[in-house]
């Protein structure tokens, strides 16, 4: 009996330790509506809401960490934080280095945006894209001239300044910039389907965390709360799950 109690106490103790462990959520904070830093200086956006909810379901304690996009994978594998939740498409190349949970956002076609005065042919000209994105590799192989930028915002600034003819990025990110540009910017050409769905990046050795987040994502898909979040942050979208 005594041994049993000690065993139970040991289990209780070790579970408290796992629960007290904080999961550090890495994000870029520069890609609205997925993630951005609001005026209060906090991480905000679709992925903030989603991440907090997933942690709540999986009973994890989570904190948010900002990291530049171009070093976001190296800093995950070296252990600075435990997840990448930054609008990252699940791709073959990335999957060789890190693991992904199942998708929490369906594959979203990318779109070109140029100045309103431009015509269709600009998509074969100089195209701005963010370094290390699926869009950058698409442009590089499409025959157009690629100019890369460290942050998503700079890609749009490059179109405005005339440095690039058009920018290729996720449709949802570009949408508000076009709407609020007062006619300066417009979508151009057809949408391009690149990249798979968006998932949470996890270290390959972190199978336990991956399983927890996967079941939390599934729970949010089946009770409709993920759909509600997508409709809230991406206006005009249909519920995908």
């Amino acid at each position, binding site marked *: 009996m005594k041994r049993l109690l000690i065993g139970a106490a040991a289990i209780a103790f070790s579970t408290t330790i796992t629960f007290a462990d904080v999961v550090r959520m890495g994000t870029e904070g520069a890609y609205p509506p997925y993630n951005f830093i609001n005026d209060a200086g906090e991480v905000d956006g679709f992925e903030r809401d989603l991440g907090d909810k997933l942690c709540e379901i999986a009973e994890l304690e989570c904190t948010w960490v900002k990291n530049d996009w171009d070093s976001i994978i190296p800093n995950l594998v070296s252990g600075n934080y435990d997840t990448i939740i930054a609008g990252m498409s699940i791709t073959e190349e990335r999957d060789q280095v890190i693991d992904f949970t199942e998708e929490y956002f369906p594959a979203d076609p990318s779109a070109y945006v140029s100045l309103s005065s431009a015509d269709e042919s600009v998509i074969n000209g100089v195209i701005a894209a963010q370094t290390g994105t699926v869009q950058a590799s698409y442009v590089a192989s499409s025959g157009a001239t690629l100019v890369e930028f460290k942050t998503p915002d700079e890609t749009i600034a490059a179109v405005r300044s005339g440095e690039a003819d058009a920018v290729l990025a996720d449709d949802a990110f570009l949408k508000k*910039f076009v709407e609020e540009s007062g006619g300066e910017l417009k979508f151009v050409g057809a949408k391009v389907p690149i990249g798979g769905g968006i998932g949470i990046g996890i*270290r390959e*050795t972190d199978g336990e965390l991956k399983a927890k987040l996967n079941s939390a994502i599934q729970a949010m898909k089946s009770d409709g709360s993920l759909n509600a979040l997508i409709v809230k942050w991406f206006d005009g979208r249909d519920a995908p799950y």
Partner: protein
Amino acid sequence: MMGFCADPATVEGVKWWMCYLTTNTHISFYKSFLVVLALLALTAPLAMLLGFAGALARRSGIFPVSLIGHTYTSMVRGVPDIVFFLFIPIAMDQAFELTRHKILCPEVIGPVYQGNDFVVCTAAKLPLSTADAWVHTTYGFFLAAFGFAIVFGAFAANTIDGALSAVPKAQLETAAAYGMTKRQTFWQIHLPQMWGFALPGLSNLWMILVKATPLLFLLGVEDVVYWAGALGKTKTAAYFDYPHGDWRLGYFAMLLVFYLFVTWVSENFLSRMQAKFNTGQATIGGKKLPQGIAR
């Protein structure tokens, strides 16, 4: 924050600016200027210390010591700075964590490097993942400061070494003739005269250090450059309380003013120091002194 800022959409004009310039992100921007100054305040003495140690090691009569001195200065001066800035913080962080891993969790036998992953036990993480955000920031800042100090220490070592050699030999021989010991000669004759020769090189190094502080941004420290970029970029009304266009030019102009101000203060201070060290010295600077002061 001021009361009327509660609903940013309704405020206009001067009030809008008052609200805008006092958002949390702006406060972080103002604080980041202090981060830059703190880096300078921490790195400069540390680099001087490493510089002295390096210079003395290079001049040492003991072969292994002088070898260490020469290796340090040649290696750091020969490899691009940016490589060291990026390498040192990562290497130090992993070295600390690896050591802690071996000591704190001996029961974990699996390898630390698993494929791409660097995996240490939870207790060995530095800082612990339970630590507050400011602990992580401060830790990152100290790693960065150390990286800066190692790089600039090597340049300082070279300058100091050169300056020690530049002190006229006659001065040291005279000291010996007066019966001073080696130690006395070094501290009372050699070192005080060295400063006059070292200062032009060291002040140059200081200015380069000031200019190099924006590299903090590359190391993930949220410095002035990070915040200027983050605040200046286009803000859409859909997600931000204070929407505006591309204001990066304005924010980077602020950085220009800040760095020019630091340069102006430094140059004034350094020219005073130069005048002080030159006083009574048998150098060109020492003989030119009267005109120097009149300026």
